[in-house]
């Protein structure tokens, strides 16, 4: 295999050199525990605070509202469980959507077993949440609305400003999982009325295993991880200093380069979409055509199954995904694709190509070329395709 084309940037990204360079000193030289009082610890302490500031600036928050975690899943769990347990005297009702990441969905399902009530909002065929249904779902016992900023599978971006407004009007806290949106969408937590926001470093060229939760000042939340006094007593554990430094730098780069990077990604994305649509039939673009993440392309190819598509692509040096990576061990079709109304058999044949800063137009052409051949080969093997051909 001469080259390897990585088009799974929504699953994870490589750590950028500039990011890694900033992390490097904190492994073996500046290894002081930020909570310690001696001078060796100063560098780590300052590095953590600098990262906090960088993250805060990117989303229009205050430094004191940023809390570092071990990633998007921890942030999601903390936001949902932390608010649920701390506000349970006020109410036990949570509103979310059917297309959330499992970090939210499984946490909500867990809370249902603990006596909480959860409303899972529908989305339309483009994956956009129904604002009327949201309004109608709010009741006296509603303590939290959690709606993702942008979907990891189909890339659809939600009308977050309207949702924030509805939450505020009804005096309900609003959490958004912005793991996929970070670095691609301008976010001002005040302008958007966001009370809690999850992010993860490894989706934006930072390291795996570190993320953050923005918690608006004054919001009462139980800790998920109790113990030492780190993170203003809200999240215990010796700080992952190199990781936090990496998150800070990755966020800074992402927001500095956002315009250029988005422009490039949107060009590539639309070119990839067009070329696939021009060359392959019996397909469907999943997600909203314009309200979508700059790097997200998601198609269903009828009559074929996603895993065989992925394996075939891998064999010609293309890394892609069907559904979300963390469930690719599972054989159920994506809950997101079912929620936008795809029948099971079509949901099974879906492919996500997620573009990143390192992809090129040449790669797009190579991928389309291979995809045409592979889809054709798999369809020739498919008993479902036969039938269609027979009918025509």
């Amino acid at each position, binding site marked *: 295999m001469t080259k390897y084309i990585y088009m799974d940037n929504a699953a994870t990204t490589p750590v950028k050199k500039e990011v890694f360079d900033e992390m490097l000193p904190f492994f073996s030289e500046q290894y002081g525990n930020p909570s310690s009082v001696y001078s060796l610890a100063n560098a780590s302490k300052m590095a953590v605070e600098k990262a906090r500031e960088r993250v805060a600036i990117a989303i229009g928050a205050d430094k004191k509202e940023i809390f570092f975690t071990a990633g998007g899943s921890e942030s999601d769990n903390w936001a949902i469980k932390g608010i649920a347990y701390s506000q349970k005297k006020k109410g036990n009702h949570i509103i979310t959507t059917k297309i959330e990441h499992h970090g939210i969905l499984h946490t909500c399902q867990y809370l249902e077993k603990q006596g909480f009530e959860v409303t899972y909002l529908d989305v339309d065929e483009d994956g956009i949440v129904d604002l009327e249904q949201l309004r109608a779902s709010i009741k006296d016992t509603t303590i939290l609305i959690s709606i993702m900023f942008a979907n990891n599978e189909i890339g659809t971006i939600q009308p977050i400003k309207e949702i924030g407004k509805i939450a505020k009007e009804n005096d309900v806290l609003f959490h958004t999982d912005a793991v996929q949106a970070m670095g691609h969408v301008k976010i001002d937590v005040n302008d958007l009325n966001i009370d809690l926001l999850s992010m993860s470093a490894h989706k934006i060229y930072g390291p795996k295993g570190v993320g953050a939760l923005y918690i608006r000042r004054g919001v009462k939340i139980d800790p998920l991880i109790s113990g030492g006094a780190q993170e203003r007593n809200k999240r215990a554990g010796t700080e992952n200093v190199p990781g936090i430094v990496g998150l800070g730098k990755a966020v800074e780069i992402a927001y500095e380069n956002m315009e250029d990077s988005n422009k490039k990604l949107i060009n590539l994305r639309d070119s990839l979409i067009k070329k696939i649509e021009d060359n392959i039939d019996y397909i469907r673009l999943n997600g909203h055509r314009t309200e979508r993440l700059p790097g997200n392309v998601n198609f269903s190819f009828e009559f074929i*199954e996603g*895993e*065989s598509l992925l394996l075939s692509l891998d*064999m010609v040096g293309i890394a892609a995904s069907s559904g979300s990576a963390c469930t690719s061990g599972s054989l159920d079709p994506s809950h997101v694709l079912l929620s936008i109304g795809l029948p099971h*058999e079509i949901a*099974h044949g879906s492919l996500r190509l997620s573009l990143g800063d390192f992809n090129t137009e040449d790669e797009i052409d190579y991928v389309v070329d291979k995809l045409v051949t592979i889809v054709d080969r798999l369809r020739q*093997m*498919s*008993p479902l395709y036969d039938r269609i051909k027979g009918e025509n």
Partner: protein
Amino acid sequence: MMYSDKVMDHFTNPRNVGEIIDADGIGEVGNAKCGDIMRMYLKIEDGIIEDVKFKTFGCGSAIASSSMATELIKGKTIDEAMRLTNKAVADALDGLPPVKMHCSVLAEQAIKSALLDYSKKHNIHIEGLEDINFDDDHHHDIEE
């Protein structure tokens, strides 16, 4: 999920893909809703499986299992084909991941289903086919 080289070989170069126009028995199992359908075509002469072809909509291991299963029964007697177990298919592929074992079950069932069709069409009794239920919802075994 990591597949053996054998699985990858049969996935990439599946043996006996296609259909047999004048097949003596055709069997189809699986469910598109679940993401897998397997169809087997048999050409049988004097109790020997002279030719076999398949078409599969499914994952890598479903395609590899179909391919391997056709190889294992080609040229064999009906009895031998009846004795082919999903485990034998998986073993011949140097193993399948636990969550994918059911794909080999589909292969075993597709053959039996084709043999059932043959036995009905040709009014031939085949020992062991009476009590097979192809509607078994073949669960994906979740690894524990």
